[in-house]
């Protein structure tokens, strides 16, 4: 029995090695192609303001659909977005995830669906992705620590996925869990947070078209340190709501437990909407520093709902945002 397991794991390592190499080759091929394209664009007098750096882009998603989301935004560089991460499962330092997540195994991957829905069970990620048409959306991302970035996410609408599980009328909230696996996630060896990492949304928030399930960034498959293989992106909330490496989705009648809310109930509320008027008790939320900005550049003003008020403000119209922070 143990022999069998050993053989299986050996094979897995081999196959992932092969995948990596082909990804690498694809990327090189793509750089060459984009080089030619960029040259052509330049010759034709065209410019793409969103493209921070052509070498940032990968070609893991040849059929992706470009959308209008964030078309005029200035992107954070791929390097900054992938070397400055809060992913405590791989260490609490900003550089730790990039250093410690390289061997994280994200294939095979499955997601367990539980609670108030008709179609529950454990689903292979491939089966979930089968239905999805991958699109690119450029979103602003604002961390509760007052830094921000702008990232071209690749993925699909959360609502589309949730609908397929047929949540019942009792499903008022949806909860997500990150993988708990201290063998692979060295940060989980110490009880820095109450593992597994959990977060959740109210059902109407989750069904908002802005909520996005991301499997990649900048044309690449999701780098491990950014929450591979699949993560949530909720652009109008602080970054910690955008839970990474999801293994469980649970539909609930009552407000779910959220890890940061448990860690610091006075500092991190269930809603955690980006709001420059409600300070974190220890620092101001009025301004933010965009990753990659120079040290002499002043901070940018933070916008209510991170600038997505038009799409989401109605969700909170009769709520006191100071109380439900």
């Amino acid at each position, binding site marked *: 029995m143990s022999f069998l397991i050993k053989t299986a794991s050996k094979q897995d390592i081999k196959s992932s090695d092969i995948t990596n190499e082909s990804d690498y080759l694809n990327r090189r091929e793509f750089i060459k192609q984009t080089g030619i394209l960029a040259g052509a664009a330049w010759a034709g007098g065209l410019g793409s303001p969103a493209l921070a750096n052509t070498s940032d882009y990968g070609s893991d998603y040849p059929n992706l659909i470009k959308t209008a989301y964030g078309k005029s935004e200035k992107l954070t560089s791929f390097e900054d977005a992938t070397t400055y991460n809060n992913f405590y499962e791989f260490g609490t330092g900003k550089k730790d995830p990039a250093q410690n997540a390289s061997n994280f195994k994200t294939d095979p991957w499955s997601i367990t669906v539980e609670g108030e829905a008709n179609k529950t069970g454990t689903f292979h990620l491939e089966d979930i992705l089968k239905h999805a048409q991958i699109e690119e959306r450029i979103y602003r991302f604002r961390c509760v620590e007052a830094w921000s970035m702008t990232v071209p996410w690749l993925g699909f609408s959360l609502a589309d996925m949730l609908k397929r599980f047929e949540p019942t009328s009792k499903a008022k909230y949806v909860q997500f869990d990150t993988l708990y696996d201290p063998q692979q996630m060295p940060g989980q060896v110490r009880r820095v947070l109450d593992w597994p990492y959990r977060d959740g949304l109210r059902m109407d928030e989750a069904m908002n078209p802005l909520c996005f399930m991301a499997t990649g960034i900048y044309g690449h498959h999701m780098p491990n340190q950014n929450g591979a293989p699949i993560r949530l992106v909720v652009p109008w909330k602080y970054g910690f709501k955008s839970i990474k490496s999801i293994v469980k989705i649970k539909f609930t009648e009552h407000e779910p437990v959220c890890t940061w809310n448990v*860690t610091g109930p006075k500092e991190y509320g269930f809603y955690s909407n980006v709001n420059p008027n409600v300070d974190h008790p220890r620092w101001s939320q009025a301004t933010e520093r965009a990753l990659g900005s*120079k040290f002499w550049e002043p901070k940018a003003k933070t916008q209510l709902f991170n600038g997505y008020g038009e799409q989401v403000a109605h969700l909170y119209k009769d709520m006191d945002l100071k109380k439900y922070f």
Partner: protein
Amino acid sequence: MLQLEAVIKSNLFMLIKHRAPAVNFFKPMVFILCFLPFMLLVFNALNNELGPNPVEEIIRTLGDWAIYFILIGLTITPARKVFKLNWLIRYRRMTGLFAFFYVCMHFLSYIWFDQFFSIENIVKDIIKRPFITIGFISFLLLIPLAVTSTNGMMKRLKKNWGRLHQVIYPVSILALLHYFMMIKADYLVPGVMLVILSVLLGYRVILKFKR
């Protein structure tokens, strides 16, 4: 036998005598060494090598070094007594002043790169946010120590000089508290610092009770 003793004694005398030039050589070296983290930071800042969030890197690095130098300064007296290394006393003032230097740079980088000299925001921050209040108090308490660090001041204040400079004990606790209060979840680094500080302050408490 007696002769040998005399030779050893004279040699020892020579050794002590010749220690003066050694200090003259080592002191500037130690000074440069203490200054190195700051120079490295400036160099990296100017070369864009501080990562995606340079301001955070600048403020944190300077704060870290301020605490390191407070701890080094507090190590000198116990190390001197326990290991009989009397010459260490020659480096106490320098480490203390470097602690003050890094605190000043830490504070300056906060008011400059984080707040852009907005007096209104800085005052609000200091009043509203306890961890900043405490950091600011420890900065203020260090000023009289730095001002009275000269030989002249030492002579003028006599016994009071020692009493005044005991302020470094509460300052070290406040500085570490300032660090603890800004942590979100992982207390490992300030925890290690706390263990070191407890040993250093505990040594002094035990010494006091022995008397």
